[in-house]
């Protein structure tokens, strides 16, 4: 049921996420785009689960748990960098290069 459209929507969401990561420079926005990519994957899993059984829906829970853990650590890191630099703009975060 609606497999094709669901997959198309998730592919579009994933592409928006990838584009956002590549073009935006704010660390928080980039992180939100990564979350969008993960949720696009969740939609793919759920869409396939209609046809392939319940496993796909269970994967979604794993992905959500992982995304939550990642958010906890990631926001802590972003906070740490804000304390040092007073900015989360990647254009200004350039101590390491070469």
């Amino acid at each position, binding site marked *: 049921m609606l497999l094709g459209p669901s997959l198309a929507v998730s592919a579009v969401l994933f592409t928006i996420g990838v584009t956002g990561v590549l073009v935006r420079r704010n660390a928080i926005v980039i992180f939100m785009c*990564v979350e969008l990519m993960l949720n*696009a994957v969740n939609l793919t899993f759920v869409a396939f689960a209609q046809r392939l059984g319940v496993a796909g829906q269970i994967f979604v829970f794993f*992905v959500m748990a992982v995304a939550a853990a990642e958010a906890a650590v990631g926001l802590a890191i972003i906070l740490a960098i804000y304390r040092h630099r007073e900015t989360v703009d990647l254009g200004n975060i350039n101590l*390491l290069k070469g």
Partner: protein
Amino acid sequence: MTLDVSNYPQLLTALLPELVLSAWALILLLVVAWRHGTARDLRLAGWLTLVALATAAGAAWWLWWQSAHAAGISTMIAVDDFRFVADWIFLGGALLTVLFSMRYLEREGLLAPEYYVLLVFATIGMMLMGGGEDLMVIFLGLELMSICLYALAGFNRRSPRAAEAGLKYFLLGAFASAFLLYGIALVYGATGTTNLSLIGVQVVSLELQHAPLLLLGVALLLIGFGFKVAAVPFHMWAPDVYDGSPTPVAGYMATAVKAAAFAALFRVVGEAFGPVGAWREIVAGLAITTMVAGNLIALAQRSLKRMLAYSSVAHAGYLLVAVATGVAAGSAAFVFYLVAYSLTTLAAFALLAAKGRGGESDVQIDDLAGLAAQRPWLAFALSVCMLSLLGFPGTAGFIGKWYILVAAMSTGQGWLAALLVLTSVVSAGYYLPVVMAMYMQPAVSTEAHAEVCLDGFGRVAMAVAVAGLLFFGVAPNRLLDLSKTSATVQRGAAAGAIAAPTFSPGH
């Protein structure tokens, strides 16, 4: 010993190394919650970590000694020699990292014993990656490893460079994980399963070798793994992250983490996508760009830490050659090279940590001038490491490269072998200046290397690593036998999975 993994106690036996290490990690977490803050507590946590890693390695050894294998198709976790050998590499890498970290943390004022807890949890993640028989287990192991490493990369909270390294690693790591996960979702959609062996069976029985959904899934999986092993063009994060992280962590990332990603990649392409030929060209292409770009950019580095970072990128290229030759030919060479490379690189990063202060980002190759006169043993150890990375005869690195070349030639990929040799010659251009600086240039002053020293643990670990490199360089047979048994078992599993008579590689 045959383990029926559908039976609960036997499943627990199969998972023994991971369970032992998880139990230790929780104990360590409790201890650290109470004993926190002084250098003594840090040492206590370090000792407990050493015991934890040693018992987990013992558990893996016990399973290996009993020649444990799964009855029928294993569901979530593989029970084969490849997994046990991979576990030893990860645990050995973590063990050496702990030994090198003990004094480093005190010297840099990082008196937080959580360091060791994160290290142990990351190692559990690696073991799940190396042993995962299901794409979901591999993903969860990868995330367990990565999340701990994001925190470890930014562990020095006083340093803006460490925070930046943590941020870069986190953003690109999460980005890569999303690709990997999308790849898993598409493979699941195409084959209806995430079990590696069953994917292999389904690909053959449903004739999915050229199905767009599956090929797209494989490509996304390879992008995800490409980021994790730092293959060019997905390597941009690696030098920056290694540069900003505490040096023992950088060594750990360059060895054990890379080994875990490679072990998972090897198992996935070998067991699940053996019949899909397309991955081979992609991996070969990645190997070419990684070898060429990694070595050429390393030539331009003056900072020792960044040079080692790009050198680790170049070595990912050599390992990709082993992966591209496939399970049958390449896996013994792959395991051997992984051991040699891990020992060498960990020792090199530890020597860098002994030389530098404050994150080691400013140690130039020229700063090593005259080290041989003032610290002959350290200079000798670093020379052995550089020669082994270069692939000089008499060191383990040479035997490793030799076997990768043999594997590449035997599968008709002579051009990959030729490129490996050529880029290795180029790599002499940045490994040998380190040796030359130490032995042929005079020291700037008699006090130039007064502060350079390793503590007792570091010396023991360094002696073990260097002795191992030289020993495997002249007598590689024991390690080779081990690599070969791990290879045959895995090949057996893969062959069993694709035993369907309709299969032929061409169509």
